[in-house]
């Protein structure tokens, strides 16, 4: 990033969309969560959702849930000029950080829920980095619309 570039942190359960080439959408230190990175290259439009849980089960409209975050992200992308036929997604996260304890592999459940919800809305996933047991940071520079970078502890960022 250049000196004037701005990192937009997408916190737990948030959805952010940007067309500003000085901005970089960022999910930092995600474990079982999923960063959904969506873009419309023709419009130079990028969006990111930080999904925490797979299903809302009617418990509210929070975008921390995959089944709420996906439609919201699509809505926000279209509202900013994105066209549904051009929207494309890359996803990262869904790690199983703890191998002890109940609750099952929430990271895997998140991955499945995000993949299914994107498919149901006709959005193609062109690249993904999910699962494993390591935390990730995910960045999406708007100036390089379509490019997504994933970083783990002790490693250089790699393009997704």
């Amino acid at each position, binding site marked *: 990033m250049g000196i004037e570039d701005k990192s937009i942190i997408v*916190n*737990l*359960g*948030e959805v952010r969309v940007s067309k500003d080439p000085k901005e970089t959408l960022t999910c*930092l*230190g*995600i*474990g*079982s*969560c999923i960063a959904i990175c969506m873009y419309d290259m023709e419009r130079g439009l990028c969006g990111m959702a930080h999904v*925490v*849980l797979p299903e809302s089960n009617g*418990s509210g409209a929070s975008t*921390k849930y995959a089944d709420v975050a996906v439609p919201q992200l699509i809505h926000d992308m279209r509202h900013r000029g994105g066209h549904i036929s051009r929207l494309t997604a890359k996803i990262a996260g869904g*790690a199983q*950080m*703890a*191998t*002890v*304890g*109940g*609750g099952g592999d*929430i990271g895997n459940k998140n991955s499945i829920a995000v993949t299914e919800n994107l498919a149901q809305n006709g959005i193609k996933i062109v690249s993904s980095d999910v699962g494993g047991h*390591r*935390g*990730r*940071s995910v960045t999406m520079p708007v100036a390089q619309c379509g490019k997504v970078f994933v970083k783990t*502890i002790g490693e250089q960022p790699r393009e997704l």
Partner: protein
Amino acid sequence: MGSKTLEQVELSDWTKLVTKGTVNAASGLSRMLGREVKITCFNLRKIMASEAFDLFGGPETLVVGIYVSIAEGADGHILLVYPPKIAYGLVDMAMDNPDDTTTEIGEDEESALAEIGNIVGSFFLNSMADDTGIRFQPTPPQVLQDMAGAILNIALTDIMQYADDLFVMDTTFETEDKKISGLFLVLPSGNFLDIMTKHADEYGKVSWE
């Protein structure tokens, strides 16, 4: 009726419960190490889940976490989180090493930290079992070195099904000649709080003293 949130359980009762649990955990650690260990808890506070990472210098900061899940009796999480250098100090304390001996977390160091998690988790839960008559069973401890956000994710995904905020408190592990400061997070799930509230309702105030 949905599960309780921590806000609905009296904060003062929760503070007493956690304090009593950590005093019991300190007695377990003292036995393990063969010398007196004091655990001091202070500054219990409510924070937004999304702000929890700031406690560690941000979600991308490398930390060492000792994680114990509550497997039986109720759902919940116990998490001890330290910057690496502080975790090394804890290892030195556990292994009775001279200061600054530990410089990385290998197999032996991981085992020492896991044992601390085991003792703290078991004695903490035993204390709560004494008060409630309910047997809480901890899982084996897991030691993790990773981004703070990713480690906290373990508990937050569970907690965030019920609430968007959580309670944390600072802790200090202290022996005669060493003092190790870190964060001790006891993150109760909804059904854990239901049990605690039900117990208080049925039997009067829990005698935390």
